[in-house]
């Protein structure tokens, strides 16, 4: 009887440690392994936010855990730059558009950008973080922000 209780207690302790370890070491979502919600043109995506911000936010942003939609965005490369972390950033934007989609790569996918040139038509897969907005008074241009990007061949 006594040994049975000890066994149960031990089993509970092992389960508890397992749960804590799972929560503690839970990996970040691997964006590239998630199936894309949809493939969309950069101009079309920007316009969805400019037309109806609330509707677009509701469609693309995740409210429970910040795990927003994974998208494949197609468009023309307008600018290539680096952020302060050293991540490559490609702006997909049509010449006639005021705003575009800013796609940040990761330190792991950075080298995919080496072969890309301004004017190329490419597809990028990544997670959306926030939508496009333009404040005329402040002249503040906010592109759609995509992170954890990788090129889609």
């Amino acid at each position: 009887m006594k040994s049975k209780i000890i066994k149960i207690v031990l089993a509970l302790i092992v389960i508890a440690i397992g749960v804590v370890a799972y929560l503690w070491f839970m990996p970040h979502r691997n964006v590239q392994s998630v199936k894309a919600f949809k493939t969309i043109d950069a101009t079309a995506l920007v316009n969805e936010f400019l037309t109806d911000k609330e509707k677009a936010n509701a469609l693309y942003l995740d409210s429970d855990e910040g795990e927003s939609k994974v998208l494949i965005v197609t468009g023309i490369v307008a600018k290539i730059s680096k952020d302060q972390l050293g991540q490559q950033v490609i702006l997909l934007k049509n010449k006639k558009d005021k705003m575009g989609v800013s796609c940040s790569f990761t330190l792991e996918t950075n080298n995919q950008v080496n072969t890309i040139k301004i004017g190329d038509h490419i597809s990028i897969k990544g997670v959306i973080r926030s939508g496009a907005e333009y404040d005329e008074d402040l002249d503040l241009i906010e592109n759609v922000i995509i992170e954890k990007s990788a090129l889609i061949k």
Partner: protein
Amino acid sequence: MKKLFLAILLISISITTFGQEKLKTTSGHIKFFSTTPAEDIEANNYKAISNLTPSTGDLVFSIPMQSFEFEKALMQKHYNSKKFLNTKKFPKAKFKGNITNLSAINFSKDGTYAADVSGDLTIHGVTNKVSEKMMLTIKNGAVTGTTSFDITLADYDVVFTKGKPSKNIAKSVKITANLNYTK
């Protein structure tokens, strides 16, 4: 006469545009840091957008809230959830304000200047007046802005009274920013 008028018009237009010239960044780094005896929590965001107008001192920020990255996946999930920052409903934090001691800053001369910044900071849908110092380092026309200040989470309706979060998350968190402005 007509030509002269046109010339004056063109010059005055170019002066106004030059005067309104803005310094911009789309890759500002914002970090927040919370420390309690239980644990230290840090999150980094490299996607802050900001415009600074040297002629008027106008300063605006937009920070995509879901771009804050935590070391622990679970912390990031909690941070984004409805109970905390609710980043679906409030996807961006904003600041609109200006430099109040503009005369103390010479944007055309290299150096480091202490700017007094005040304005409205909106986080989690709640707007508060803030006044903070921002160091501006001017070098070869590029401007770097750095600042560090504490915010009280309750001021922005981010409140947890029960359980682990109330022990593990500080009531006030330290915000640091590094903004790499270019023309």
